[in-house]
């Protein structure tokens, strides 16, 4: 399956998870969430509130940057401001519904590591750091995490460092969607993308993969979704994580 289709699946899956009226944030290095929020707002979540680092509320950017998800283009079309510090405060007081976050490693509890591979003090690879995650993941109502690769190095039984933990509800990968189980707080398989299979996911995941109690067949991407997606992101910024 082409990267184009993988990115479309992930972006559309993200959009579908956004509910109408929710306050939704993404941070740096988040091209797919940035596009997905616009998509959701054109589909079923027209009153969702879009918040991002440049601080505009409900921006409708004319285009996206392929290099940065903190670019001031993401403030275009907004009529009021709500800077990053306000967004963190909003989450801290229980007013942020969705935070899109990612990690170099994600474990079976939906915790993530973006600090280092190896140890904190003597890292093999120093990673960028969790940005807002350590404050947002435990305070936002729903964390939606994603990975552009699905392998045992990324989806691990044990994180090298727990950068952030908390309210991860979904983890989306090129192969499918995990959802945290209310039974034991562990990620279980919620949906499988058409390009993949339970077996492929099990073989490429570092933690035990079981089906979620709410497991669904992933509803096929619709023409409407694809068409609006294409009109929102004609330059394919959503593919930039796969380049």
């Amino acid at each position: 399956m082409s990267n184009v289709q993988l990115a479309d699946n992930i972006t559309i899956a993200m959009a579908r998870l956004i509910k109408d009226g929710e306050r939704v944030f993404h941070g740096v290095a988040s091209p797919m969430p940035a596009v997905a929020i616009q998509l959701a707002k054109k589909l079923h979540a027209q009153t969702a509130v879009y918040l991002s680092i440049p601080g505009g509320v409900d921006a409708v950017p004319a285009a996206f940057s392929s290099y940065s998800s903190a670019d001031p283009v993401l403030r275009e079309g907004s009529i009021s401001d709500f800077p990053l510090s306000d967004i963190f405060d909003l989450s801290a007081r229980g007013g942020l519904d969705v935070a899109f976050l990612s990690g170099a490693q994600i474990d079976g509890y939906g915790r993530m590591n973006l600090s280092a591979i190896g140890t904190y003090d003597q890292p093999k690879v120093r990673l960028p750091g969790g940005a807002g995650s350590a404050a947002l993941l435990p305070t936002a109502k729903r964390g939606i995490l994603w990975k552009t690769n699905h392998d045992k190095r990324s989806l691990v039984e044990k994180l090298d460092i727990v950068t952030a933990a908390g309210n991860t509800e979904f983890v989306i990968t090129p192969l499918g969607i995990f959802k945290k189980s209310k039974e034991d707080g562990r990620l279980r398989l919620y949906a499988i993308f058409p390009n993949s299979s339970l077996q492929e996911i099990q073989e490429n995941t570092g933690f035990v993969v079981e089906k979620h109690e709410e497991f669904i067949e992933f509803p096929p991407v619709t023409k409407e979704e694809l068409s609006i997606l294409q009109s929102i992101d004609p330059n394919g910024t959503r593919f930039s994580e796969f380049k």
Partner: protein
Amino acid sequence: MSKQTSLKTAVAAVEDGALLALGGNALHRSPVAFVKELIRQEKKNLSVIKTAGALDVDLLAAAQSLKAVYGGYIGFEMFGLAQSYRKGVQKGDITVYEHACASVIAALRASIYGIPFQPLNGFQGSELPELTGEVRYVTCPFTGEKTAVVSALRPDYTVIHTNIADEKGNAFIEGAVFEDLIMVRAAKKVIVTAEQVIDSESWTVRPQVPGFLVEHVVLAENGAAPGSCAPLYSIDKAGVVAYLQNCEGFVEKVKEAEIHV
């Protein structure tokens, strides 16, 4: 008395070992021209406060000027890792005090408010508090709740790059202010670089930075490049890629480029 001065003079005021807060976020409106002059003047042992940093922090790492970072994210987003920073940390030359971006803000707020620490809601389940020592816990005397707190971070200098400034230090940021206004209030001293310096009598917009908080104003056209400074210029992809392909070479060129302002 005008606060406008040359880049050289403003940078000369920064002492080795200083704690700097750098404005902007990621590759946007960060004070790159200022950082380049820090490198030319071969400043040493600098500590940097940043929510999300990129070229500014990495350049200091590449030039061996960086001792420590208090930050939430240091990376080039879709361009990849901050190579010099990463190597410096891996070699043990640079100490990372990894914060959440929100706790950087909380630590700056403590300085703004003149208090030694600031509570915040975050870090539940994270190992960062014990790994960095930056987050401790206090019992709320009203509710008994265990509450995470961070220590005040008070920059010796906050340096921000802005669109327009005047000779009194008033400065205007067009569009996204990022964390600049917080950093300005938290600092002992503030240096503003600007794409344009105007006369204080001629404002047609309302500057967000009041001049009385500012020590030096420096004209720095393209002062955030190859990062962006909206609406004047966007990220210069070629410039960023060139840097990442040869950080040390880039630093050498910076050092060779004598400035005449």
